[in-house]
């Protein structure tokens, strides 16, 4: 009976194990979003890609012209 009680107590010790649920809060770029500076990032990248896209379209158009001549 004593052995069973001790065994039961040890087995139930899981009630104090909370390794999975409580996590330290993860640092995300809160300030960048709250201050609105994230839009600077987005705009920069959008401008770069817009430049690339215009470049590609212009090459494509020039090629089409040359191909039509032939």
């Amino acid at each position, binding site marked *: 009976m004593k052995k069973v009680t001790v065994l039961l107590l040890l087995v139930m010790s899981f009630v104090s194990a909370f390794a999975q649920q409580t996590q330290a809060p993860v640092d995300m*770029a809160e300030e960048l979003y709250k201050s609105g500076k994230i839009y600077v990032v987005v705009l920069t990248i959008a401008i770069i890609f817009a430049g690339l896209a215009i470049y590609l379209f212009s*090459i494509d158009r020039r090629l089409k012209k040359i191909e039509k001549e*032939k």
Partner: protein
Amino acid sequence: MTNDIMTKLPTFGRINHMKLINQIWSWIFAAGLTFYRFLQRQMTKLWWKVLVVILIFYTLIAGFLLGVPAKAILNETIRNLYFHVPMWMAMLSVFVMSVFYSIKYLYKGDQKDDMAAVECVNTGLFFYALGLLTGMLWARFTWGEFWSGDPKQNSAAIAFLLYCAYVVLRNSIDEEQKSAKIAAIYNIFAFPIMIVLIFVLPRMTDSLHPGSGGNPAFGKYDLDGRMRAVFYPAMLGWSFLAVWIATIRYRIRLIEYKKNDIN
């Protein structure tokens, strides 16, 4: 075709099965050929290129403005999923095209197919390099070093050299047709080796990469619906951007080839 042997096959009742199989195959082949010709015609069209640009713009903007899961160590760099991984998708899609054209060249001997294969590899190498560089940068801030001897990193570096060897091989042979033929055979071998190196071997061993060595891939627990909404369009957009660049390079090469032919 070995038609004489075909006639000696047993016929079940009144149906000659060989004829049916041949008929079905010719239907499939005709359908595939029609689809291929349709794709060929789209090469110089504008509509899918505009779609590609719109898709990528969307992923650039949504990639930063939409929410992401807050994961330890990764923090905001989880957004790199929208940029680093699509580089590999772009490389893959263009390398698959190059293998297709290499096989087609060996079959038909048309120099244009060989030009398509080369320019696909050239474009693929460009995206390959971008994938390696962006991966190294991401690794520096999440794994601690630019290069940590991770199996996938090492495999990717080896396969990169494999495709660089393709370029070297082409330039080492003077005669155009010999160079094209040997390069086509090499390409057909290099592709499965690259696939195994990058996508199979790392999964079988200890690795830091998500999806390898028993790590969960960016899947059920890391990649939620918000990320999928940007990730899948990004994979599509960048793949077709690579295809677009490859077609541009091919068209330039074709014009140069025709000009040299006239001269």
